[in-house]
């Protein structure tokens, strides 16, 4: 998808230039260091890396998304006042755990530096798209990211929709854009696994963990814990969501399928409490969004602002479809 093109380009460069198999023949490492995509190049690009926001910005404003600017990990701006205190507050939150999983076979073709650049770029793509949809990056965990969606003054329903959009777009990037590059190189792909759950106000306690500078503002909630657990049940490029997410989103029921391996992720039998986890059909969800368009060959893109004047080439391609039609009007 076009919005991720900056991230795709970096990964492509790293894969193309730093292939150990290819460089053995070309005596890389000793003889041809010029063609290598070095860490210092990555560093320079990384600082300016962002989504190609053009078409996305109108989507975000139309959907009432306000990104949280100047984020500081572990310090959600709405609960910053809890810092340095033992005060607590109750407020709903959606917790998303994103993990990037790579095959150990990658180490046969790429060195540690290249693998770092690739996984870090993927992680940055996750951070960028979640942040764009109002997500707050709570923690970076190795190759994973822990994100909160939800703000004071924003409804649970809207926050749920934003989370689903961000995570679906990110997974599409993994499943198609990146997959194509990896398949082209003939290597095993990197994939992600995601868990998402919603805890309502009465079930989420916000408080400071740790002390002084070794602290963060965090949630104490069954549903944050469950989101992390659900991520463990996700297969390659799957998003697993909790029952609360499904009920709050209240969208097409066919988007959800119970996780076969373990239907109830949490149970309190004597209270007859059984909490279900679902595989979320993120692709179908994306296709149904009014700001996403699906081409006849199944390629997804954000609905762009259609230019006033198309090129002659575009007009000729449009004529090819339109000329099948010959309209009439019956008086």
């Amino acid at each position: 998808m076009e919005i991720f093109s900056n991230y795709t380009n970096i990964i492509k460069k790293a894969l193309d230039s730093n292939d150990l198999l290819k460089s053995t023949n070309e005596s890389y490492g000793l003889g041809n260091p010029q063609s290598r995509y070095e860490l210092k190049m990555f560093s320079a690009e990384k600082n300016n890396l962002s989504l190609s926001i053009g078409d996305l910005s109108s989507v975000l404003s139309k959907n009432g998304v306000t990104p949280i600017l100047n984020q500081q990990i572990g310090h959600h701006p709405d609960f910053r006042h809890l810092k340095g205190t033992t005060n607590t507050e109750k407020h709903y939150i959606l917790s998303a755990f994103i993990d990037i999983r790579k095959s150990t076979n990658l180490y046969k073709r790429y060195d540690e530096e290249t693998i770092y650049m690739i996984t870090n770029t993927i992680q940055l793509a996750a951070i960028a798209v979640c942040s764009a949809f109002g997500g707050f990056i709570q923690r970076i965990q190795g190759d994973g990211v822990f994100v909160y969606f939800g703000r004071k003054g924003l409804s649970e329903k809207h926050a749920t929709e934003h989370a689903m959009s961000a995570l679906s777009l990110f997974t599409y990037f993994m499943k198609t854009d990146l997959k194509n590059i990896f398949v082209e190189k003939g290597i095993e792909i990197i994939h992600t696994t995601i868990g998402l759950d919603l805890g309502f106000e009465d079930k989420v306690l916000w408080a400071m963990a740790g002390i002084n500078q070794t602290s963060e503002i965090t949630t104490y909630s069954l549903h944050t814990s469950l989101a992390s657990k659900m991520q463990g049940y996700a297969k390659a490029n799957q998003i697993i969501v909790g029952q609360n997410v499904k009920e709050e989103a209240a969208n097409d029921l066919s988007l959800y399928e119970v996780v076969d391996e373990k239907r109830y992720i949490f149970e309190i039998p004597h209270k007859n409490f059984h909490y279900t986890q679902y595989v979320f059909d993120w692709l179908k969800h994306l296709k149904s969004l009014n700001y996403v368009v699906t081409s006849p060959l199944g390629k997804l893109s954000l609905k762009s602002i259609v230019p006033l004047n198309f090129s002659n080439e575009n007009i000729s391609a449009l004529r090819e479809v339109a000329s099948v039609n010959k309209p009439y009007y019956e008086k």
Partner: protein
Amino acid sequence: MSINHIMKNNLIKDINEVLELYPKLRSYEEADGTHSLIGEIDIFDASEIYHGSFDIRVKSTKDYPYSFPDLYETKGMIAYEEDMHMYKDGRCCVAIMQEEEIRAKKGITLKEFLKEFTIPFFANQLYYKNCNSWANGDYKHGLEGILQYYQELLNEVSVEKVISELNNVLVVNQKGFEKCFCGSGKKYKKCHRNTHLELKKLPKNRVKLDYELIVKFKELLTVK
């Protein structure tokens, strides 16, 4: 299993395939037992470039799949005017009745209707917006359009000759080895038979009605 039940099952299967292909559409059952698809449809050119989206409603008919569905544009993205081939209620005149009847006779699913008629119709609207002309021309309105349909099908400009050919199809059952009625001297099978086979795809009542309309139209032209 009754024929109605089979048709209903086929319609449900058809709708499910449509919803898979066009995920922004939803289906619902109308009070009269027919089904409608409503939602948005995206228009791409042959190079997979996106050109625009339209809010639509496609209404199936009671004798699905053997009659032509109705298509509506529901958001007023196109002026509901004759020249845009739109009725006042947003219904789209996607094709001339004769073409609709020939296609419906074979049976037309909603999936086929969307691919063969809906998408090209809206692509043509976008083409018109850009070029101020229709990609493959359009039919004139009303009776003149019906005459134009037969003129193009029979490759005849002359109204008299169109009338004569329609009459031939309706009245004369010419054999292939006979000399063609048109006076070319060729055998019928080497001359007008293929065109007439096209005409015979239309219900005979339709050809008869159109023949009478065109005869009256010619009389009016003569009076003028």
